[in-house]
């Protein structure tokens, strides 16, 4: 590592981010175990938490398909969109991460050649 990396504001931001998320995540994981029965999650919160994984993942996946080259205007990336639709079908039929990833990548490469 070069000496300048120590004062690099980007490096500082990255470390602050990682440690910040690390601490918050550890507390989320540890506090309920540590407090044992003294902590009762409300029914309302439990119901909400069930929806966190699908909602978060969709909020990460979908923009990457619709905002090609990180433009601000909606600009569907057709090969990616079609490959994602195909991968959804594979995931639904096979429930296999490996097949979804491998066949999804093959579909993208194929579509990129044909749609260009």
């Amino acid at each position, binding site marked *: 590592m070069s000496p300048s990396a120590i004062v690099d504001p980007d490096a500082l931001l990255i470390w602050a981010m990682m440690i910040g998320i690390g601490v918050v*995540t550890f507390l989320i*994981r540890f506090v309920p175990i540590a407090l044992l029965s003294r902590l009762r999650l409300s029914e309302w919160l439990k119901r909400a938490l069930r*929806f966190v994984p699908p909602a978060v993942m969709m909020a990460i996946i979908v923009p990457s398909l619709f905002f090609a080259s990180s433009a601000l205007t909606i600009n569907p990336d057709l090969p*990616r969109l079609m490959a*994602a639709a195909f991968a959804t079908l594979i995931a639904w039929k096979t429930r296999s991460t490996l097949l979804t990833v491998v066949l999804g990548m093959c579909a993208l490469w194929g579509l990129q050649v044909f749609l260009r």
Partner: protein
Amino acid sequence: MPQITSSRSEFITGVRAFTPMLMSIFPFGMVCGAAAVSAGLTPWQACAMSWIIFAGSAQIAATQLLASGAPLLVIIATAAVVNLRFMMYSASLAPHFRLIGKRWQAFLAYLLTDQAYALSIVHGLERGDNEENLHWFYFGLAGSTWVCWQLATITGVLLGSLVPASWSLDFIVPLTFIAMVVPLLSDRAMLIAAISAGLASILLVLPLKLNLIGAAMIGIAAGMVVEQRKKMA
């Protein structure tokens, strides 16, 4: 000393329970490592991320937000929402871990993942009478997951810097998430939550890169509304 044999065998059972997950966790860890490097992290930072945070979805979300120039607090808040589900797992595991020391509890809490939680709870239900050793099963399972995750990250970091961008390997991120989301969509409420979050993520325009967290909140709210209506009907 049957106690030791029993805890050791539970640990080994936990390690064995991990093996089928290798095929899904290893690619995901590789993706996290490669994505971190392509977002501008040094190889050391990318590896450190996996042991400091040790939560794939949050690592991906944070990496993307960092690359798009989001403010620090927004990145941390988004990751917190992504990881909030661990609170539910932790509360659910708490009664099983009540007899062990605080340091052990802290260590096991750090290792908590979706898979470690889900399989441990199922194993605990199956064993029922032998549940005082559940933390050994959990440790075998979650510890293996941790080792696999770190090795996968290193592999991803190394491969990520070798493969040219024209290969579009960043597309593995949405593909891995698709593979994880689809099996979750078992009922209408989950489906509506996913679709609403997806629509909101492209239609919502929020400042400070709050879109991800905003879209996720809309998806969660939509799912709860659908579930509530179903109950009242």
